[in-house]
């Protein structure tokens, strides 16, 4: 069985642009939550001096993550901000002194067993850097290590524009290998598959060199078809395994980890410097010179533009991430987050949302859904308030990749309706549970 998908423009304009550090911004804003789960508990207060890599927020609860200062300087204030998904959280606003002094406490972690490894990953503050932002230690903390058969390394990078994972593969080869070795050593895994879309031949070449070094590493070239980077799509296309509805990759003996996340873990084990900076692709029709840059986490988006030669025109839409699943930000003051892999500045023409017309039942949404869902039927069931049908149509499987909305000739908001339908179904299911 072949999974469906869509052919979209690749626009990997920045694949050859080796990332360069941007000048240290004067003010940075570090939100207490740049991950899925509970926000971190902020440890610093106004007037405190901080150094690069200093812990300024502690993970609160199991699914949470540490946050660290990315500059040296003074805490200006502890403020509140509204994240792009509408949640109010606290954040630390830090004024940089420009010296970038490293915290003295930083040293490579000392690890001798699995628990030590998990603690190190937790201390590093790393979260899923492919965009999901799920705390990595929570993902790796598997009770029964024997369940893990394969680690699938997600290097598909299927979204247009983004090339930060490509750069990881080209520039951070040895750290990827370190990360793999650590998982091998502490988690006792013997099979690693790196899934890369075919549109990145040089990255595939580099990873094949790695595979020559180690018989447990395989490289799997994926078709250039969006969305290869979707977890379930990736696991199916590399291993032919189907993750059951409501299940996780571990249910079929798999762990999926993003390549940049893995490389960061490798780097952290060597240097002990927590996640304080990020390679970000700056691209989009409003950008003069698309580039990859390394920016301290918390850098306002507006500070990135100068490094990319400035803007051609006033942007009409600015995205965290790629154009298929990225989040449009309300303001240019929004900070670079841990899981920001690209910032896309779109001009008016590129940002234009086409007008919605009547559904003509062409079936394109059904023919392109990687999971074989029926977005059209889901829309009708949602409109009619028919939750029973939503359950039968398995809308909870939808990964919100956006293929349906992309192909729809009537430009109907299909994936958008799926998102609403998922919420409605969840409400209904929890209500049903309560009643029983």
């Amino acid at each position: 069985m072949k999974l469906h998908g869509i052919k979209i423009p690749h626009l990997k304009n920045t694949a050859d642009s080796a990332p360069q550090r941007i000048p240290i911004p004067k003010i940075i804003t570090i939100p207490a939550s740049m991950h899925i789960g509970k926000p971190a508990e902020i440890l610093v207060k106004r007037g405190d001096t901080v150094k690069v890599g200093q812990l300024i927020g502690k993970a609160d609860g199991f699914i949470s993550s540490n946050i660290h200062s990315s500059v040296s300087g003074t805490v200006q204030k502890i403020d509140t901000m509204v994240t792009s998904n509408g949640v109010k959280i606290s954040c630390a606003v830090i004024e940089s002194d420009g010296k970038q002094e490293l915290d003295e406490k930083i040293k490579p972690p000392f690890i001798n067993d699995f628990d030590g490894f998990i603690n190190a990953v937790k201390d590093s503050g790393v979260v899923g850097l492919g965009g999901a932002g799920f705390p990595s230690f929570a993902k790796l903390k598997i009770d029964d290590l024997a369940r893990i058969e394969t680690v699938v390394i997600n290097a598909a990078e299927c979204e247009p524009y983004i090339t930060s994972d490509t750069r990881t593969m080209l520039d951070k080869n040895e750290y990827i290998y370190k990360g793999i070795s650590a998982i091998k050593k502490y988690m006792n895994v013997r099979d690693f598959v790196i899934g890369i879309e075919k549109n990145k031949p040089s990255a595939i070449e580099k990873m094949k060199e790695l595979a020559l070094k180690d018989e447990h590493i395989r490289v799997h070239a994926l078709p250039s078809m969006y969305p290869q980077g979707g977890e379930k799509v990736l696991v199916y296309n590399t291993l032919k395994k189907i993750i059951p509805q409501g299940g996780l990759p571990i249910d079929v003996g798999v762990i999926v980890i993003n390549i940049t996340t893995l490389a960061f873990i490798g780097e952290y084990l060597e240097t002990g410097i927590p996640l304080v900076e990020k390679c970000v692709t700056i691209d989009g029709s409003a950008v003069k010179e698309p580039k990859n840059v390394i920016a301290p986490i918390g850098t306002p988006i507006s500070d990135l533009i100068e490094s990319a030669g400035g803007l051609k025109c006033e942007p009409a839409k600015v995205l965290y991430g790629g154009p298929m699943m990225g989040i449009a930000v309300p303001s240019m003051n929004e900070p670079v987050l841990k899981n920001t892999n690209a910032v896309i500045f779109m001009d008016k023409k590129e940002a234009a949302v086409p007008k919605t017309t009547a559904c003509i039942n062409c079936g394109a949404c059904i023919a392109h859904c990687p999971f074989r869902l029926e977005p059209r039927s889901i829309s009708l069931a949602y409109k009619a308030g028919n939750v029973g049908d939503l359950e039968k149509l398995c809308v909870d499987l939808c990964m919100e990749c956006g293929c349906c909305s992309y192909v729809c000739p009537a430009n109907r908001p299909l994936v958008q309706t799926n998102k609403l339908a998922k919420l409605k179904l969840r409400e209904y299911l929890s209500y049903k549970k309560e009643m029983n």
Partner: protein
Amino acid sequence: MEHLNVSVSPHFFSKRTTQNIMLDVIIALMPALIASVIIFGWRSLLITVVCIACCVISEYVFRKICQKDNTISDLSAVITGMLLAFNLPVTIPVWQAIIGSITAIIVVKQLFGGIGQNFANPAITARIIMLVAFSGSMTSWTFSENSVDALSGATPLAAAAKGFSSGVDYMMLFLGDHGGCLGETCALAIILGGIYLLIRKVITWHIPVAFISTVAVMSFLCGKDPLYQILSGGLLLAAFFMATDYSTSPSTPWGKIIFGIGCGLITILIRVWGSLPEGVSYSILLMNILTPYISRLTRQKPLGALGGAKS
């Protein structure tokens, strides 16, 4: 300075729109239109233009009266007009063509909610209504005076049904040089249009292939000449252009195959045992009615679904 658009993802859209899909269908119908002018003369162009104009105007007026968004720019009314005209004999009185077009758009399409909402194919249903209402002029197959040959008489299918030879060979069938509705006779032109639709991915192979091959197999089993059955009557036009109508055919691959097979079976049943020489229109209309059920029954199982998606 900041007026950023914060719409929800995706932020990219394909260039394909309803309008350019419909434009592709119109382009695909052009060879058949040109062929009809060559075969039947300029009157076929007149009928086509009248039907298109009436369809577009009635859609415009109806939407205006109902105070709804106007949809004539999506070009679907143009296609309805063309297909209806292609299903009429060239000698049809203009006023009858006008009534047919208005019926197609208002009764069959707009009263059900307009594009995408109608359960039956407007052109086919209007043709059937006209066949009942104006049976005389709808079944007179005289060629007009300025056509290439002053042939007249029954269509090849009608002749075959009555048991005598129509004097039409395969080549004449293929090129369309015989009696029939104005757009359905030239197999070559229709196949060219069909290939264009397939290349442009407006339609998939499922319905035409299932429809045509069912007719071939069934006519062979019934002792008829399969090639003759395929090339004559409105089969090719219907299989490529009318059975594949989005709103009135299933959208799953298996649904399309079942739909095509159903159309083929009913066509042959009517051609062989029915009292009518041609059954393509009825077969499609009957299958249109079954479409919602076929769609439900052929729902694909989503990847990793625990229950089934079928209902």
